[in-house]
């Protein structure tokens, strides 16, 4: 019986350690940073699973580090909805967002966003950054509120390959 217990102990330890290893931030390798219209290609399990259960997993390169810190510190009131997470998942996602934020110097997209950002600005809405506004200045206001679009937070309504991180103009189709 002792051996059985010991066996369980060992397996439980190994299991816990491997779980821990998986839950560590991957750091998200910035592979194939495509420049202006391509989001840096990133993978991070909790970021994709949690953020994308309600909306597109917006690229960390679209807001500076201090914005993500504010964002993740206020998930109980996340744009009017409770998006609270358990503390471990929250910390894991924040580390990933910080490491790949617009001001991390890890992507060309981030550099572009920062070029137009006020020095100490910590915006929470990507759609209110100067970079976003400039990029969409030809889209009439009424288009955003169309039923088929909903709001500017719904990237994929027009950017048909947004889920893949592709945002170049050839892939845009504004729905009626």
């Amino acid at each position, binding site marked *: 019986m002792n051996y*059985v217990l010991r066996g369980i102990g060992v397996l439980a330890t190994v299991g816990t350690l491997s779980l821990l290893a998986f839950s560590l931030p991957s750091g998200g390798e910035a592979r194939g940073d495509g420049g202006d219209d391509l989001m840096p290609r990133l993978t991070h399990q909790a970021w994709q699973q949690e953020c994308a259960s309600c909306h597109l997993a917006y690229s960390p390169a679209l807001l500076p580090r201090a914005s993500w810190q504010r964002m993740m510190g206020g998930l109980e009131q996340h744009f009017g*909805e409770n998006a609270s997470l358990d503390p471990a998942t929250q910390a894991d996602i924040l580390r990933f967002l910080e490491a790949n934020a617009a001001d991390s110097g890890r992507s060309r997209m981030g550099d572009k966003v920062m070029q137009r950002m006020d020095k100490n600005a910590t915006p929470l809405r990507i759609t209110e950054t100067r970079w976003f506004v400039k990029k969409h200045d030809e889209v009439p206001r009424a288009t955003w509120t169309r039923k088929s679009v909903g709001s500017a937070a719904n990237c994929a309504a027009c950017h048909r390959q947004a889920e893949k991180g592709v945002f170049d103009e050839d892939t845009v189709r504004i729905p009626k």
Partner: protein
Amino acid sequence: MIKHIAWTSLLLLSASAAAADTPASFMARYAQQAGVAVTALSPARGEALYRSEHPGRSGGAQSCASCHTANPKQAGQTRVGKRIEPLAPVANPQRFTDAAKVEKWFRRNCTDVLQRECSAQERGDFIAWLNQIK
């Protein structure tokens, strides 16, 4: 030694099988927490909770059905247009099989829609209703 390993794996297997959640196991758990028998859970009360309207963020009324639609066998939509898989287990067998997910979404959505947490009784009633939908 092999015998010990076999025993250990058997124990672990049965432990993980017991840990897998089902709608029925959630009903049993919530009934126990509420101090009532599982048979005292009420699908009718669960449905009433689902459809009850509460003052929403932008002045209008909101309910569970606002995002999950009037028919829980159908897919719903989040406020920013993302698909929500159906709530009824008959249409989506993944529902109520993961305790962390179930707790997370009750916590978030009850505080959003009702401006308070849901009681164990309410959670039990809610699942009892969804689980009997054919």
